[in-house]
């Protein structure tokens, strides 16, 4: 009889089974729940990071217009023959197989084992295909472009989702030929981009500035922050208005999120946020005035600044030598950089050039003297061609002397002796206070980054002491009273002083932006009325009028409009060489000033430049253009 097994409930081994396995299953379910439920979000994010890629597209850059709506900087189309890697995966694969088969066949022939380096073979396959495409384009264009292997390799390893430009910057003819002859659905396509264009050429290059390439920065809060991001090359302002208003001009980047396959090639597009064009900037420059100013000092080193007296808007901001911003876009070549450096053209002399103001400062000295009561407009001084200060003779520019001069004649003839005398009487403190009141050591308020006001100097005994030049002397005061010595100002600051004097106020706030609704006024400029009586103020202005009518600024005169001007000829030592700086400031019309101008031209050899002779014609040209335009507009 066979033994029959009987089931007993209380079997110890079964107990192990019934306890252990449920426990193990519980652990498994717990672990799965933990991973799939509790850590779900984390794994989703990891998965997205692996399979999603973000592409950032730059928005078109905004345009820059002058105050009359003329386009100064815009965008023009730039074309390249490009290929998307995703479209050419199949040819890559087939070429890889062909090369591999070749290697194997050759190895078999020689009886050796085939050594295949996949990475190298992949690279070779891609190179062959891309070379084939370039050859196709070359045969269409009749050109001889070559594949830039370094660019292609770098692009493939780090910018796979973006089109690879095979041939950049196609000319209009090449673009036209390829548009017709490349197959519409082929792998090589024409990719369009923009480059900055300057319809007026090198006009206002320093004021407008230039852009250079940069990888597009993304706004905060843009989707896909945690994803691997590829950026199309965008533009960033590097100087001038382009830099100062870069945020406005840049616009908003577009975002595309793609699903990619395990090899990183795009598979599907999940999100597409279109980029937005940047805002336009309407600057205060007048293209015609700017052109006249640039032509007037062409070939020399110098600056011209013209301001609207009422609003402080900059009508012209000229700096020579200059450069053509088109040469700097889309990138600066070594040759161009070298040329600009050699010609010292990077510097914006209007806002960054630091010079002693010379005799143009006499107007401020006159104001200081009148305010302190030291100067009586009708009192005269006998100029014999020099003035003794201590044991030194400080010369007047007219060696034979001007004879008896009052304030008006002293300003008209730019008599140094008059201002030495009264400068010493009022003291350096009064003069420097006046200079500071006119803003010659502070910011003009212009929005540009290139403003060297921080390095401007209004001389004081402390400054001389700090420089280790010893203690302050009467000679320093004498120099200071005629705008020489330790003085350093920018042409923009001097132009602001001129506009302030024209409007009988202490300060002028300059602006490179145009606002038709801007009103000006003391509050807007942060200024106070000049503490001069009407008679005192009139004396200064009549002196400046006299400078134009019979004095040193005759060349600034224009027909039909009364101009008030002051010339100046300063001397500086540059690398041990004395150089002359020809200055002139002016405002017009005298009855109700509208425009204030400051001009400085640097001489090359001593004596080759003087305020009246060299800077006067520039003032004349600028003012003439301004009033001619005004007449046309009024008509």
């Amino acid at each position, binding site marked *: 009889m066979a033994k029959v097994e009987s089931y007993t409930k209380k079997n110890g081994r079964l107990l192990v089974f019934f306890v252990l396995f449920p426990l193990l299953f519980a652990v498994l379910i717990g672990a799965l729940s933990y991973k799939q439920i509790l850590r779900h979000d984390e794994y989703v994010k990891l998965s997205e990071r692996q399979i999603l890629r973000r592409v950032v*597209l730059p928005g078109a850059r905004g345009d820059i217009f002058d105050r009359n709506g003329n386009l100064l900087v815009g965008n023009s189309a730039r*074309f390249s023959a490009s290929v998307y890697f995703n479209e050419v995966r199949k040819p890559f694969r087939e070429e890889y197989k062909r090369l591999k088969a070749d290697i194997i066949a050759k190895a078999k022939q020689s009886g050796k084992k085939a050594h295949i380096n996949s990475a190298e073979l992949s690279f070779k396959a891609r190179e062959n295909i891309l070379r084939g495409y370039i050859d196709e384009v070359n045969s269409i264009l009749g050109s001889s472009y070559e594949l830039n292997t370094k660019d292609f390799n770098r692009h493939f390893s780090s910018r796979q989702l973006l089109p690879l430009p095979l041939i950049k910057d196609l000319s*209009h003819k090449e673009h*036209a030929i390829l*548009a*017709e002859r490349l197959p519409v659905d082929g792998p090589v396509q024409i990719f369009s981009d923009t480059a900055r264009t300057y319809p007026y050429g090198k006009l206002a290059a320093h004021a407008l500035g230039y852009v250079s390439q940069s990888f597009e920065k993304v706004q905060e809060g843009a989707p896909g922050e945690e994803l691997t991001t590829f950026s199309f090359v965008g533009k960033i302002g590097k100087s001038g208005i382009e830099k100062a208003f870069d945020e406005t001009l840049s616009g908003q980047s577009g975002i595309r999120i793609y699903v990619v396959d395990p090899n990183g090639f795009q598979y599907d597009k999940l999100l597409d946020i279109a*980029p937005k064009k940047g805002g336009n900037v309407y600057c205060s420059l007048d293209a015609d005035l700017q052109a006249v100013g640039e032509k007037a000092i062409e070939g020399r080193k110098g600056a011209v600044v013209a301001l609207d007296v009422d609003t402080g808007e900059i009508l012209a901001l000229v700096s020579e030598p200059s450069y053509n911003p088109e040469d700097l876009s889309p990138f600066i070549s070594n040759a161009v950089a070298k040329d600009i450096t050699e010609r010292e053209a990077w510097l914006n002399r209007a806002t960054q050039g630091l010079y002693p103001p010379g005799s143009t400062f006499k107007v401020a000295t006159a104001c200081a003297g009148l305010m302190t009561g030291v100067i009586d407009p009708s009192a005269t001084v006998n100029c014999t061609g020099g003035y003794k200060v201590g044991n030194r003779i400080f010369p007047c520019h007219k060696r034979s002397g001007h004879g008896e001069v009052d304030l008006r004649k002293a300003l008209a003839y730019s008599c140094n002796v008059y201002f030495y005398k009264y400068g010493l009487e009022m003291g350096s403190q009064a003069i420097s206070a006046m200079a500071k009141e006119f803003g010659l050591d502070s910011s003009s308020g212009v929005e540009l980054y290139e403003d060297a006001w921080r390095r401007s100097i209004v001389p004081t005994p402390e400054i001389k002491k700090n420089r280790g030049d010893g203690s302050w002397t009467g000679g320093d005061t004498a120099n200071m009273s005629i705008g020489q010595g330790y003085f350093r100002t920018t042409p923009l600051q001097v132009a602001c002083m001129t506009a302030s004097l024209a409007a009988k106020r202490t300060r002028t706030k300059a602006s490179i932006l145009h606002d038709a609704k801007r009103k000006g006024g003391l509050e807007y400029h942060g200024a106070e009325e000049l503490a001069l009586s009407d008679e005192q103020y009139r004396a200064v202005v009549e002196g400046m009028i006299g400078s134009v009518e019979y004095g040193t600024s005759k060349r600034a005169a224009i027909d039909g409009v009364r101009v008030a001007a002051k010339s100046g000829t300063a001397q500086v030592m540059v690398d041990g060489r004395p150089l002359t700086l020809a200055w002139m400031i002016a405002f017009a019309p005298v009855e109700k000033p509208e425009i204030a101008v400051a001009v400085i031209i640097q001489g090359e050899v001593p004596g080759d430049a003087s305020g009246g002779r060299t800077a006067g014609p520039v003032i004349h040209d600028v003012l003439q253009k301004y009033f001619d335009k005004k007449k046309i507009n009024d008509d």
Partner: protein
Amino acid sequence: MQSVAVFAALLFLCLLGPGAVRHFTGGLFEEFRAPIDELPSRLYDLEKFWSLHSNSKRALIEAGRDLARLNAAYELKVSENSSLKDTLLRYEAIFNFPSHEKFNSVVARVVRRDLSAWWQQMTVRRGSLDGVAVGDAVVYAGGIVGRVSEVSLNTAVVELLSSRKFRLAAHFEGSDEPVIYQGAGALSFHDPCGEVSDVPSNLSASAARPLRLVTSSLAGTFPEGLVIGDVVSLNTDSSALFKEGKVVLRADLSALREVVILTKVLPEEQEDAPRAGSGVGEGS
């Protein structure tokens, strides 16, 4: 099984046969097909002839007289044209301008039109025997028609400018900025249309003030300034760098009976090209 085997063999022949065989048979077939395409056109001409034949002599004389007047006017225009061209050549020589592309004009009768959702083309009754080559421009009085895409001995296939595979560089009248024109097919009971892209963002167009799109001569296929169509609206494209819009083509494109093929004049071309057409165009 037998039917499957037969079918498989035929499939192989059609799809997987050697490329050279397909190319050879394809070429042969084109020459066989061309007369078939031409036949209806010839029959139409014959039908027209006999219908005119049935007209009274008086009607024919009057029609002849009207035609003579027209001919006289056109002859005057042709001679004016000739003298203008001579003047242009003189100016080119004086100012050392690069000479504009010269073309020979070959007038062709439209034999057949195929305008479907997939293709937009027409067959014309001129071929390689008349000097027509692939890539030659095809135009008419109202502007451009398309480009020759295939040529056989006596016929040629013209890809119309409304075809989605037709693309060329163009510009707006009065502007130098290059834009791209591409055909966009034709919706049923609508006129054919196209698309323009890479338009500078400062341009705008409206129905009241459309922008006229014309050809660019830079690629050398089309003469400068031939009308493509009108753009009545422009919208910012997806990149926000440029604008794009729809191009309204001429309505009479779908009903053309005669077109002109512009064949390029080669420097060494002889003056008397074989069957060179109407003689309206420039000779070499």
